[in-house]
């Protein structure tokens, strides 16, 4: 987590999309996905338009298509599920190439694939153009409870430290000739997990001490505030607004 992944996900840049305040981007991505999910699956053309809209954003953000498509792979388990749907779903059947497929299942598979992919693409674009730190500020600005933001912030700060400790423990295990091969070795892995928990918890206590020593009394001082101008909001919300128009057309046509 933390730095390693972030750096793989985040693409440094100075595009207009990178420059937008994080909370406007979060709101835009969320609203866009909401609109996509609310679109009738029969309006196939609408999903094509959504894909074009996202492509425009990606172009503006200078996120290369290969990067975007590569990140979409996270969806693969559900693609497998979607592929199964036409075979197991109920309802009237059509015969394609000698296979008996359910019409509803085909629609369902299409629905999940189209909406899921657009959702993932929107999230990937958001993560690719927004730094971790900014994302947290954005969530804070969008009135996520401060305690939750703090927990997320600590998780991101220490995610690396903890996974690093886990890696060192694995190296220590392996250099003593241990290799997890099967169920027999679960005990050893569980002991590592237990040790990792104790280390994490004790570090949490030490961090708390360090915070208290610098005057922490239960609430985090607000150091950074992000603000957005009307124009920035308009820019960010152009995406979900365009999508909404498409969605409404999809319902009417």
């Amino acid at each position, binding site marked *: 987590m933390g730095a390693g992944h972030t750096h793989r996900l985040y693409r440094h840049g100075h595009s207009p999309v990178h420059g937008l305040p994080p909370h406007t981007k979060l709101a835009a991505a969320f609203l866009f996905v909401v609109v996509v999910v609310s679109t009738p699956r029969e309006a196939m053309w609408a999903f094509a338009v959504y894909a074009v809209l996202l492509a425009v954003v990606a172009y503006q953000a200078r996120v290369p298509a290969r990067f975007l498509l590569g990140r979409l792979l996270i969806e693969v388990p559900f693609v497998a599920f979607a592929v199964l749907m036409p075979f197991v779903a109920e309802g009237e059947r059509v015969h394609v190439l000698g296979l008996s497929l359910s019409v509803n299942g085909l629609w369902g598979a299409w629905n999940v694939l*189209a909406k899921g992919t657009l959702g993932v693409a929107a999230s990937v674009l958001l993560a690719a153009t927004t730094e971790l730190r900014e994302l947290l500020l954005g969530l804070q600005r969008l009135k996520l409870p401060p305690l939750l933001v703090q927990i997320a912030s600590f998780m991101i700060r220490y995610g690396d430290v903890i996974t690093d400790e886990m890696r060192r423990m694995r190296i220590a295990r392996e250099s003593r000739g241990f290799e997890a091969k099967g169920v027999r070795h679960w005990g050893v892995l*569980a002991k590592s*997990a237990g040790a990792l928990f104790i280390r994490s918890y004790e570090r949490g206590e030490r961090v708390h001490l360090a915070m208290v020593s610098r005057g922490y009394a239960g609430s985090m001082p607000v150091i950074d505030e992000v603000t957005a101008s009307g124009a920035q909001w308009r820019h960010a919300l152009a995406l979900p607004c365009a999508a909404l128009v498409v969605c409404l057309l999809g319902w009417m046509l």
Partner: protein
Amino acid sequence: MHVPDGFIDAPTSAVTGVVAAGALAVSLRGARRELDERTAPLAGLVAAFIFAVQMLNFPVAAGTSGHLLGGALAAILVGPYTAVLCVSVVLLMQGVLFADGGLTALGVNITDMAIVTTVVSYAVFRGLLAVLPRKRRSVTVASFVAALVSVPAAAVAFTLIYAVGGTTDVSIGKVATAMIGVHVLIGVGEAVITALTVGAVIAVRPDLVYGARGLRQRLQLRVNGALVDAPAPTAPVAARTSRRTLWVTGLVTSLVLAGFVSFYASANPDGLEKVAHDKGIDKKEKEHTSAGSPLADYGVKDVSDARLSGGLAGVIGVGVTVVAGSAVFWSLRRRRGDDVSPVNTGV
């Protein structure tokens, strides 16, 4: 089990969003009691731990491996409220940063993986501890069973959500069979690792195992005789009343909203109505091979006029979620602002 966007329809996603927001609000308050002002750093570190542990693959058989979901482990180690927060934060970050689980499906994912697993496992855990003899071994056994039950419980919860708001007509019987079947297997792995991990922690730092605190305190009383900390029993009683009001408020809000939104949802041909009426409607449809499953055959849907109402439901549902969610958190923040905690000064 990270559900992507579009898998569950909009109204159901909205309802689970409200449920998740309500549960988070309750947990935020509860976690403050579990950890007081140390909540932020400790819960953050535990969330990082859960995140790391989810990446710890354990080999199952040649070539395949599984990983922990961690809900039961977190609930037993740090208490149910903190666990809900930690797992939710992990899910939130996975959704926002790694596109793992859809943004609109966040409510579904949190309800399913953060709330159901922790609440079920903790309930089972405490229930067993109450029955079993007061020994360390009982804690391990209880952890095993709790984790074993928690994973299929999440699968059942998912199946229920799917039954209400699934976007495809895969029969509920099939979904349930597949989901629960697979997750019973996963549950066994989860149970073994969770029990062993709890056992490992309890051997070194028994004081850190939240679920076994009662056990430890009782042991201490016998040894130290006079060293009984008197304020301990009074604090939970005082806390319970405020917790109860919050629970009731949260529950009523969730229920009212759930009812309200699903009223609209039922106008959607993909939604509740189907499940409610499936058997009656499709008598005229020809029987399929899989008719054995309890909720098999669905009718062909009438898309004509229900379409618009469905879309309306989506928009209204989401609007309601946003308003309700912010209202819950707003009121919570106000409340927290009011009782400027005298507890916090104590270090």
